[in-house]
């Protein structure tokens, strides 16, 4: 049976990000025919983009120009394409926009969505998604009942793999659909600063500090690193108790329980009250001057050193490399 897939991409600055090409590669590995929905703006190098997509497995590229960055028109386009000739798989890389599209699309098509996938396989003729759940502590295999299978992949989870087949894709233009209901209007001018108050609960990356900070001033070091990593600052109870940082940022038994993909524990000894709040984090990196600190027993990488020296150097190196 021939399996058809649609991969929805979002070019940024005239390029398709590597993670999205990764999704395309994964789809191409388990599907016989792969199409890509490529929204472009005026002036985007369509041929170049299409070539890049073809090299990663796209047989056809459906180009739509001037699509607003909202979910409703995308849902309409995909639903219309699916109505023409059904897909077995509709795949996205995770983003605010793709999550909005996928949720609505699931309802419109009566389809199941599996999210946060980091792998996709064909097992005995069935699609199987691979997902790391509960802060990557559990590996879950998920499947779909009926079709199409809607899949959202974790950001940057898959490697872009060049496809042996062609580099001459079929480029098919798609019309922007007419609005069918009330619309969301977006101001798409470049955005400003982070305004979320704490964001701990939803953070992917937490840069946390404890008593080892030594003084309130050093919290700025964490804030800088958090901003470079796109994370949020967390603190242990002694820090809140000293009045150095708001309670909303406290991780632990009497604070928040967080499950970020990366937890960077700086100057935190790792008392059990703190551990219960972060032990299910994905990757844990600990920086502490005391080599005996319990935190070193539950981290993946431990640095025995002074956070006030190591953290600024990490921040600087990350800035340099980006």
């Amino acid at each position, binding site marked *: 049976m021939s399996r058809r897939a649609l991969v929805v991409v979002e070019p940024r600055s005239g390029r398709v990000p590597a993670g999205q090409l990764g999704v395309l590669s994964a789809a191409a590995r388990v599907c016989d025919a792969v199409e890509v929905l490529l929204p472009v703006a005026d002036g985007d190098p369509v041929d170049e983009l299409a070539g890049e997509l073809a090299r990663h497995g796209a047989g056809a590229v459906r180009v739509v120009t001037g699509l607003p960055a909202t979910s409703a028109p995308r849902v309409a386009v995909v639903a219309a394409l699916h109505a023409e000739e059904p897909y077995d798989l509709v795949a996205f890389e995770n983003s605010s926009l793709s999550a909005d599209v996928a949720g609505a699309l699931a309802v419109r098509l009566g389809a199941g969505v599996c999210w946060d996938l980091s792998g996709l396989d064909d097992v005995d003729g069935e699609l199987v998604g691979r997902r790391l759940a509960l802060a990557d502590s559990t590996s879950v295999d998920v499947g779909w009942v009926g079709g199409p299978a809607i899949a959202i992949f974790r950001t940057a989870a898959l490697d872009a793999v060049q496809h042996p087949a062609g580099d001459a894709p079929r480029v098919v233009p798609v019309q922007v659909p007419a609005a069918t209901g009330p619309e969301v209007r977006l101001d798409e001018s470049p955005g400003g600063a982070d305004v979320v108050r704490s964001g701990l609960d939803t953070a992917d990356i937490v840069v946390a500090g404890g008593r080892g900070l030594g003084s309130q001033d050093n919290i700025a070091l964490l804030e800088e690193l958090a901003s470079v990593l796109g994370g949020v600052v967390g603190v242990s*109870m*002694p820090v809140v*108790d000293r009045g150095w940082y708001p309670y909303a940022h406290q991780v632990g*038994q*009497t604070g928040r329980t967080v499950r970020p993909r990366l937890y960077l524990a700086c100057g935190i000894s790792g008392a059990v*009250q703190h551990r219960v709040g972060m032990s299910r984090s994905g990757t844990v990196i600990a920086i502490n001057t005391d080599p*005996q600190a319990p935190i070193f027993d539950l981290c993946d990488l431990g640095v025995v050193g002074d956070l006030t020296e190591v953290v600024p150097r990490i921040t600087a190196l990350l800035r340099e490399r980006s």
Partner: protein
Amino acid sequence: MGETTTGPDFPTLFSPLRIRGVEVRNRVVFQPHFNALGDVHGMPTEDLTAYLEERAWGGAGLIVDGSMATMPEGQMSRKYLAAWDPRAVPLNRRTTDAVHAHGATIFAQLNHGGHTSLEHPPPVLWAPTQMPEPSSPHTTRAMDRGDMVRAIEGFAVSTRNLVAAGYDGVEIKIAHDGLLRSFASPFFNRRTDAYGGSFENRMRFPLECVAAVRENLPEDLPLGIRICLHEYTPFGYELDYGLRMAEHLEASGLVDYFNCDAGSFSSFWMEIPPAAVAQGYFRPLNQALKKQSDLPIVAFGRIKDGGLAEHMLATGEADLVGMARQLIADPETPRKLAEGRAVEVRACIGCNDGCLHAVAQEKPIRCVQNPAAGQELLWSERLLVRAAEPRTVVVIGGGPAGLKVAEIAARRGHRVTLFERSEHLGGQLRLAARQPHHEEVAEVTHYLEAAVRRLGVELWTGVEATADDLLELEPDVVVVATGSQPNLPPEHRQSHTDPDAGALARARGLQVLPEVPGLELGCVYSVDEVLGGAELPGDRVLVVDGQGHWEAAGTAEFLADAGKQVTVISSRPVVAGELEGTNIAMFLQRVAAKGIALRPLTTLLRIEPGRARVVDGVTGVEQWLDVDVVVPVHSRRSREDLYHRLCDLVAESDREVRVERIGDASAARLIQTVLLEAHQVAVTV
């Protein structure tokens, strides 16, 4: 019941270990310690049996009962168990049976007190060479050969009694107190006969005692040594010598395990280190002994965290983990760890206020965190019964008293709602934990807060309850735990942020304000303000210690750490004189290092902007001290107005509502009595 299963998180901790012919079910050892639960004749009381049984029930693998004295001349306290006395055998049998019933193993520790005693005045003290232990004014009797023969016989007789009483093994103390270490010590032992002079000679008498114990132990029962590896005194021995002692003892072939130890009476803050000594501080000692020895090693020294314990065992730095205070604070620690309930463990806070402070005065052991410690027969959590009729209990105040009453009432099946007017639970403990070396005090709140959340207590923080509306909640019981506030005049700044709650009580003559002129001035800062982070108008600070406990002492340190120039006065002969011994010893060491000036026997008369008038208690001479800030620490006043108003309203209404006030709302006190009081109220609801 008593069984513990292998916890997935602590596989090594909950694996059995064979010591000679005895299998211990897991690696948790309730370390031997004087608990003053013997009677004045050295007989174990029912309280002692219950105390040890509680730890066996809680899942400990090995319990070491003792120390016990080997002969009358070596009994460090009347309440030290008299192992030599045959009358103790059936009473000790009661203890071993109770412990065995829960699947735990029980050894007894034997000690001859030698040059150390807790008695005032002490009886004759035995030693290798006549000299006082440097921390004591009492000199010793240099032992002759006849004394030694009697001492050896004491070990032999005691061992036979212990075997008859059903103990599974015997541990001999060559540790922080007692006779045998003084023989091994080059400082205390200056003899020139066969028992001194050379290392081998110094070790001869301890080995003779060890041999006497071995000879009287059945073949399959193990013999262990509690060994002081480092005396931590300027004159004493250090780790290299402690290791040499261990090596020598091991080479005798008489020893089956070592239990690590450190310190001496002259450095007793290292025997039973308070919170100012880091957790796991002594690990290098355990590690060093483990490295050279083929015997099982019991690690020691403020180990209270299951993760740390597992790590120490898994990485091979010890074979068993000793916990005394942690199991005093929470007898159920092992069971909770084994059952995946590590977050429910109530941690020792290293305060020494309940345990060491009591037993050093030969009073029965107590614990700040665990109201039942030493009085299990009265207050054990095992005795909690589910209420026949669930009541609606409203608790006002989320400090330690309110949280404790909520915890116990909820465990008994009552419907509990708790209101706390501030954003956080914990009350004054949140401030106390900001004092240097006091972070662990916060674990009192940690435990209670986690417990009440787990138990489904309805918590409202940031909500100030008022008496007028309270009865609308239709409570059966209202517990007022509204705490206390610094007793400052209503004109003082504190009234802006912490409205004066004493007006009603003062109008009724139930409270008075302190009579020092000037307490309303802007330069007067309460401890609550200081620890709360108030910006002080100047660097010269006078702390007035009217309490003798950490409230003043720890605040003085807090200020000194912030760069202030601190003077502490007290009307009494000693500043911080109410502190427990290890704590005051280390406090005074830090005072010197931090440049804090202490002026005992000095009383505050009045305060004016920029200066304070004090009087010397000996000479009567008055003097102005130039200071920018005065921090008066005298007794706090109860926030009791809500209680009185509520009582009036209940009396006026036709409702049957029981109203209780507990904690500082009743009278400002230390945490220990407050938690016990809360427990006692909760069991009667």
